[in-house]
């Protein structure tokens, strides 16, 4: 699991790569919470590099989403591929979060 962030003039972009499963989800969650604690209002999580996700991964995403929302921020996702897109749709995460096809579109919209 690789989690990095880039500060853009429009917001904070978090780039995640690898697997979001029962062994990596808590690490992903704590890394994200650490990155957003600097008080950024607009956050884009780019999931391009995520090839596998389970309910443990969804749990960590939900937790990050609730934290950003509680802080009055805005969290969007982009670049959902294959299984990740399918799991987001089935679980209703595509409705509770805003999803963009590309990072450019996400940055434009926030």
């Amino acid at each position, binding site marked *: 699991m690789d989690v990095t962030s880039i500060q853009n003039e429009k917001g904070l972009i978090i780039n995640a790569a690898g697997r979001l*499963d*029962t062994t990596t989800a808590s690490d992903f969650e704590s890394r994200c919470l650490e990155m957003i604690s600097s008080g950024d209002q607009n956050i884009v999580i780019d999931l391009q590099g995520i*090839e*596998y*996700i*389970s*309910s*443990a991964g*969804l*749990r960590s995403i*939900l937790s990050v*989403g*609730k934290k950003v*929302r509680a802080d009055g921020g805005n969290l969007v996702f982009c670049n959902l591929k*294959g*299984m990740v897109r*399918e*799991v987001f749709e*089935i*679980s*209703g995460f595509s*409705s*509770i*979060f805003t999803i963009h096809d590309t990072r450019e579109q996400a940055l434009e919209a926030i």
Partner: protein
Amino acid sequence: MRPSEQDEFSWIKLPGTAENLSSFQKYILDLVKQHEAPPDITLKIEMVLEEVLLNIINYAYSGDRPGIIKAGCLFSDEGVIVVRIIDQGVPFDPSSSPDPDTTLPLEDRDIGGLGIFLVRRMSDQVDYQRKDGQNILDIGFRL
């Protein structure tokens, strides 16, 4: 679609611990890859194994000692991969547990039940039977 008792499953049998999850997955996925299943189905089987096995590991057995879990896989002539998971824990039928409400807004969403819901939606069929004190779960994937 339910395989008969005579069908040839290949089995792995290990104590149900979180540490053994990857061994279960590796054994089944190696077989699935040998049968040249497409990558999207392989990923779904991997996820289904994570959800079902963790559920058994976390909830099926009380006490300190992990129960034994048996996981097997069968490739039918009709182009269906059947993953069978057997445990001797408390009775639990994943094929009929209630669906979570996936329409709730973020603030009200709770993650409970989502794993089993994903199992049902990412596979083509889920069949459960309780027999001789065992939970026997068959999860089918059409190639």
